[in-house]
């Protein structure tokens, strides 16, 4: 196999582009796809401070690396979920990445600062762990962005993630969720802008990007997601993709081009009418926000001191 650009030996094939790439041109290709996504959806403006939600996995570390390569001011935020050895390991990958590159990483440990962890929350709420995990992440990333003065929160959702979410929502015709699925959620009502710059890149490309860029990441899967529907949707889509390369891209971007606007126009309820949570001040649809209700159920607490990132750990000099 030869690189499409330089005809040198290729290290990866990307069937949906009908192309193979050497290391240097694969990295260029990834950069180009991120730039294309950022520009197409007005994700990040010049001078914006970006807070990258970092898990220690391939997508978030690749995203952080790509944003830095492209010259953005991007700091990381790691949320310690308290999922045993899995979390210990994920945190060390995030810290190692930041330390080696002299980047700023902020940390929040759920157990230390809020008195609970995800396994406990799942047990107390009797819901799947991903539910409490997602709620905690959304609330704390928003709150940290506010406290740290970040303009935008960037997450490592890739094409496979977005196609799988879309697939799940279509299977059940969850039109409210479909109307909200977008690569950018604009700022407003007290929420920061949220962007997904990796939507034009597949999960396999992100893992490859990490390998060729020398990024050590946590390969091990979160032990709490085993058997969830999201994984089975990805497997299903990959089986189709193997027979018909480009299907995932067409499915997701076809939705954005042809269906998303119509669904948004028909949205029954919008984000208007939000109030400030009486306990933490976050924008909420009722007097007490969903996160504070979760804290109550898990017998957690707000951190001591000002409402801010609870344990900001700055590693390395500011770039």
């Amino acid at each position, binding site marked *: *196999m030869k690189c499409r650009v330089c005809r040198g030996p*290729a290290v990866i094939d990307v069937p949906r582009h009908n192309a193979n790439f050497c290391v240097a041109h694969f990295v260029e290709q990834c950069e180009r796809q991120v730039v294309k996504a950022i520009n197409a959806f007005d994700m990040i403006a010049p001078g914006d401070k970006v807070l990258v939600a970092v898990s220690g996995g391939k997508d978030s570390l690749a995203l952080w690396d790509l944003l830095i390569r492209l010259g953005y001011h991007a700091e990381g935020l790691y949320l310690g979920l308290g999922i045993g050895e899995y979390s210990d390991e994920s945190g060390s990958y995030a810290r190692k990445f930041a330390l080696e590159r002299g980047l700023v990483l902020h940390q929040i440990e759920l157990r230390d600062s809020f008195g609970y962890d995800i396994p406990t929350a799942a047990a107390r709420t009797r819901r799947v762990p991903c539910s409490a995990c997602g709620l905690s992440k959304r609330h704390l990333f928003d709150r940290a962005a506010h406290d740290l003065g970040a303009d935008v929160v960037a997450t490592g959702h890739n094409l496979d993630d977005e196609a799988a979410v879309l697939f799940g929502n279509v299977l059940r015709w969850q039109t409210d969720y479909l109307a909200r699925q977008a690569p950018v959620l604009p700022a407003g009502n007290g929420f920061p802008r949220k962007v997904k710059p990796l939507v034009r890149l597949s999960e396999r490309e992100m893992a490859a990007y990490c390998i060729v860029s020398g990024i050590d990441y946590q390969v091990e899967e979160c032990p709490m997601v085993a058997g969830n529907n999201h994984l089975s949707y990805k497997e299903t889509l*990959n089986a189709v993709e193997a027979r018909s390369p480009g299907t995932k891209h067409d499915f997701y971007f076809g939705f954005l081009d042809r269906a998303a606007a119509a669904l948004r126009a028909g949205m029954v309820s919008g984000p208007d009418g939000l109030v400030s949570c009486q306990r933490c001040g976050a924008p909420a649809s009722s007097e007490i926000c969903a996160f504070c209700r979760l804290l109550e159920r898990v017998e957690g607490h707000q951190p001591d001191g000002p409402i801010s990132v609870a344990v900001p750990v700055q590693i390395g000099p500011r770039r």
Partner: protein
Amino acid sequence: MVRLLNELGVTRESVLVVRNGELVPGDAQLEDGDEVEVRPVISGGAA
């Protein structure tokens, strides 16, 4: 390598193959003595 993936029953979209520490493309010939890692790339967090 294609034969290896077929034998393992995995689709090319869901794995990468690393030979002797280096990423290799789909048509790579694997030799006796090669250290080969078939690395899954699918992660499941839906949050």
